[in-house]
Structures are given as structure tokens and as C-alpha cells.
């Protein structure tokens, strides 16, 4: 009874690790990994015969590293790490929200969490706060995400039905989208506008390690908060009253999940922009494989999300080299039709 979910976790982790390596080897320029490996062990000893080994000493962090190593460390590695962490965040947040609202249609995208985070980040970009502090965009993103979840609960009121919560989420999402459109409309120049639009489309190309380091602590704290809520989510499958009678403090546990979602999704969105549908798709696909248990779904969804975003990013780089599609465009292209399928499949069982 316990072996099957464990097997699933091991399988997902193995696939994620494998695609992570594929992601590291994918990119417009081919790099020689034995070169990189030797170079990282012994930075001073640059292989002068390698194809990309012209010693590049301009960047101060890269003194003594060959071009291959620089591409690896400053382009490939942050991209792959971001794919994993953002995918894990979205999968985990989706599983947590679906468990909290006991509804397979909930997710950071549909509930407006992603869009509110994006709105926060767009506001920071619009007013140029990103120039003031590197933390401005992620903090604005997280504030947006937190506000969205708070607003959903305020709008729906206490002891609200699941349907009311979902409706509130959809409404918050609509408000956030319209405000994003307003920001684009008022953009001071076409260049600023295209910058915001490209950012909104969702991508993890051309991010640096410092982007990753910036978002990581917030995502880690968010993950931890969500992962500790597994037991509560399990209890919630018997309804809120019963969960309370099983010893859970409803308000506190809800708060933990909401903060976890806000922190991790806010940080993720502020680095990558909107990568949609991962949070909806992944928990839904994996749920039957963990016996529909919301607590067990959390870790599986985190791994599944990481795997899906890695796969999408490998696809983005492999299929359209030269004119790369944005990651968010690809996940939406796959996720949209899946969402339609989900509606058709569940329309008879929705109350």
C-alpha cells in the first residue's frame, strides 16, 4: 500500500534528473562536457585545443574558465535550475490549492495567483523599481500573490462554499488581467511595452544564477510551508468541520498554505513571468497515481511540475532554434486543450 506512491516518487525523481541533464546539454552552441568538467576541477588549466576554449577573462567571475565552462555555468545551469524550481513550485502550489479547495479545477493560474504576482512584478517594472533594488520585482511579485489569495478569501467570506471561492478567484484573476492590460496601455514607450509583454509570456531563457539565488529562499520557505500541510489536506477530504474535529486549526492551516503558495508562486513568477497550466495539469495527472490522497500528491506534483517544465523547456530549445518560443506559450498551448478536455470529462460530475 505504501510501495506504489514511493515507486512513483522514485520514478519521477529519476526522470527529472535525466531530463535535467538533457536540459544542460541542450542549447544553440554545442559544448564539450569533458572540457567543462576538467576546467571546473582545475580552473587554471585551460585546454587550448578545445573548440570553444579561447580563454575569456573579461568577466571577473570567470577568470580562468574556458568559454564552454562559462556557457555551462552562466547560461545552461541557471536555466535548468530555474526550470526545476519553477516547475516544482507550480506543481506544488496547484496540488495545495486543489486540496485546499477540494476542487480539481483550482490552480495558481485560474485562481489569479499567477496573474496577481505578474501584476505586482509589472508594476515594479513599470515604475522602474527594479533599478532601485534587485529585490523589488520578486517582492512585488510575492506581495501580488499574497494579496490575491487574501482577496479571494475576503471576497468569498468566512465558511464560504468551494464554488464561491473559485468564483472569487476567477474575479480576482479578471481584475489582475485588466490591470496588467492597463499597465501595458500606459507604457511610456514601445520598448518598455515589449519588455513587459515578453516578460509576461513566461520564459526562463537568459536568466542568471543571481536570479535563481534571489528566488530560491522564498521558494524554499514556500515549499516547506506547503509540504508540512499534507496531513491537513488529507483531513480536509472529509470536509472542514471534520478536519477541525481531527485537531486542525482551520484558520492557521489555511494561512500556512496560503503563505506557502504566495511566497513560492510570487518568487517563481517574478523570475519567469507567467508559465501557465502547470499547476492545473500536473496534480490532475498524478492524482490517480497516489490514490487521490492530497497529502501524497504534494511531493509527486512538485517532481511532476519540475519534469514538465524541464521537458517544455527542452522542447522550446530543440524544435524552434533561432526563433525560440516562450516557455509560457508552449505550456499554455499544451495546457489549454487539456483544460478543455478536463471540462468535458468532469462536466457531468461537477455540482
Amino acid at each position, binding site marked *: 500500500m505504501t510501495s506504489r506512491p514511493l515507486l512513483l516518487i522514485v520514478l519521477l525523481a529519476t526522470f527529472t534528473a535525466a531530463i535535467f541533464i538533457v536540459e544542460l546539454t541542450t542549447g544553440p552552441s554545442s559544448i564539450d562536457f569533458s572540457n567543462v568538467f576538467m576546467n571546473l576541477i582545475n580552473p587554471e588549466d585551460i585546454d587550448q585545443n578545445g573548440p570553444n576554449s579561447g580563454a575569456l577573462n573579461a568577466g571577473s567571475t570567470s577568470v580562468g574558465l574556458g568559454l564552454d565552462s562559462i556557457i555551462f555555468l552562466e547560461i545552461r545551469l541557471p536555466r535548468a535550475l530555474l526550470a526545476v524550481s519553477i516547475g516544482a513550485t507550480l506543481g506544488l502550489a496547484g496540488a495545495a490549492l486543489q486540496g485546499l479547495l477540494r476542487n480539481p479545477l483550482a490552480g495558481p493560474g485560474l485562481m489569479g495567483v499567477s496573474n496577481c504576482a505578474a501584476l505586482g512584478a509589472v508594476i515594479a517594472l513599470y515604475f522602474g523599481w527594479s533599478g532601485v533594488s534587485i529585490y523589488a520585482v520578486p517582492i512585488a511579485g510575492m506581495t501580488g500573490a499574497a494579496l490575491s489569495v487574501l482577496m479571494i478569501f475576503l471576497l468569498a467570506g468566512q465558511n464560504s462554499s468551494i464554488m464561491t471561492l473559485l468564483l472569487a478567484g476567477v474575479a480576482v484573476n479578471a481584475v489582475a488581467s485588466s490591470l496588467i492590460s492597463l499597465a501595458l496601455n500606459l507604457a511610456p514607450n514601445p520598448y518598455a511595452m515589449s519588455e513587459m509583454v515578453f516578460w509576461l509570456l513566461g520564459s526562463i531563457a537568459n536568466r542568471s544564477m543571481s536570479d535563481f539565488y534571489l528566488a530560491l529562499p522564498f521558494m524554499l520557505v514556500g515549499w516547506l510551508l506547503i509540504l508540512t500541510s499534507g496531513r491537513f489536506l488529507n483531513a480536509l477530504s472529509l470536509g472542514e468541520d471534520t478536519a477541525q474535529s*481531527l485537531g486542525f486549526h482551520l484558520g492557521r492551516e489555511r494561512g500556512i498554505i496560503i503563505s506557502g503558495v504566495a511566497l513560492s508562486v510570487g518568487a517563481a513568477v517574478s523570475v519567469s513571468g507567467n508559465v501557465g497550466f502547470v499547476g492545473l495539469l500536473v496534480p490532475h495527472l498524478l492524482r490517480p497515481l497516489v490514490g487521490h490522497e492530497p497529502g501524497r500528491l504534494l511531493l509527486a506534483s512538485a517532481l511532476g511540475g519540475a519534469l514538465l517544465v524541464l521537458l517544455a523547456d527542452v522542447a522550446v530549445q530543440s524544435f524552434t532554434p533561432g526563433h525560440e518560443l516562450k516557455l509560457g506559450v508552449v505550456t499554455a498551448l499544451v495546457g489549454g486543450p487539456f483544460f478543455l478536455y478536463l471540462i468535458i470529462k468532469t462536466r457531468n460530475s461537477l455540482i
Partner: protein
Amino acid sequence: MKLQAKNIELKFDGNSVLKNISIAIDKNELVGLIGPNGAGKTSLLRVLANLQKYDSGELLLNEQAINSINRKQLAKHISYLAQGAPAHWPLEVYRLVALGRLPYLNPWSNLSAEDNAVIAQAMALAEIEHLSGRIVSTLSGGERLRVLIARMFATQSNIILADEPIAALDPYHQLHTMELLREHCDRGGSSVVVLHDLNMAARFCHRLVLIDQGNIAFEGKPDCVLQTENIAQVYGIETQILHTESGMTIIPKSRTSN
């Protein structure tokens, strides 16, 4: 264990739902809460389960204020079965019953051998061992209810509070469910059950509490509470009451004209 509510007042938007209600549940007692729709039965049960904040009064478990007891501790003493017996995901029966062990687990620990033994025992008591591997959403209403009762047995709580557990069941499963609750009380536990079926209430409960518009109208042994004039006053119906060898039978005849 003794659960006691004293002078409970509860208002929703200015409307009094419970008016100065006092009730005590003792060891070995199966208490039936009866009364018309909207009388306040569910509200009173939720107050007793510490799920509903009340405006005034106090709630005591073994003479100790319930608010001073840690939630996890309290969960080991009192379990609650919600109306409609919800189960939101298609969980495996064994895993659902295992949820009853949640008050004993910390966030990272797994079920111990002891927990599994308790779960197996709970499933045996509720007679659902054969359903162990089934998915709860594929069960019949009666089977599902027994699964949820097994969940409460797995919590090993002394006091079981159940809101209309038999409302949607056929007579066989109604009897089965009431027997399970009665056996729980015979084993030293106690239970408060909201019921609409007066015959079942008369047959299985040690004591009945008839609620009318937020007040306790009548309280006592079933044959004292269930008298034609009491029922006429509270429910507004005329009944015929037969005392047969298989117990009391209440037959609703007509609505009194008012």
C-alpha cells in the same frame, strides 16, 4: 467522559438559534437530538463538537473548560460526523479510516504498527474489513457511512457526535448504523446523534432531547418525550403511538391545522 454544555446562547445575524440551552452527556449514554427542521439540532451538535463559536455559556469536558484543552488532545476525545458524511476525493477505504489516526501523528511520522492495529480493529468493529481496498466513492450510502464510523472508531474517541447519520439509508443499514453507535456506548463511550426518524430514536437512544426553536422542549427517556401531545406541540402533527413487543412505534397521521 462527561461532556457538558451550560447556558449556551447562539445568534446568527441577530436571530437566536440556541436559547440558553444546557445539556450533559454521560458515559454509556446514547442521546438522540430530535426536533423539526431548523430547530437548532445541528447548531447544538456543532457547539458540542467545539466547531461553532457561541455567544455565551460554557462547554466542559470532565468539568474542564474545552477552550483550555489543546485541539489535538480534544480530537482524541471527541469525534464528529458531519451531515451527509462527506468524502471529497475517491480515497481507498483503508486510507480513509487511517485519517482517524491524524490526532496521534505529527506532520512527518508514518502510521506505526500500533496505528495499523487500531485501524484494523476499527474496521472489524464497523464490519467493513471486506471493503478495505475499495474506493470510497464506489460504495453504497450505507457502506460509506460505516467506513466513516470506522474512521471515528480509529480515533478511539470516547464521545461520538453524529449529524443525521441514518437520514439517507435503507432500514437494514439504519439498524446496522444505530447498532454500531449503541455498541460504542455499551463499550463505555457515549454518543449524541441528530435523528429525524422517531422510531429509530425511540428504539436505540437512552435519552431523547426534543428541541424546538432553539429551546429544549422536552428531555428524558424516549417514552416520556415521545408522547402525542409533546409531538403535536413541537412538530405540529397528530400521531398515533403504539407500544408493541418490538418497541414503541410512532405513526404520523396528519398535520394539525394551524
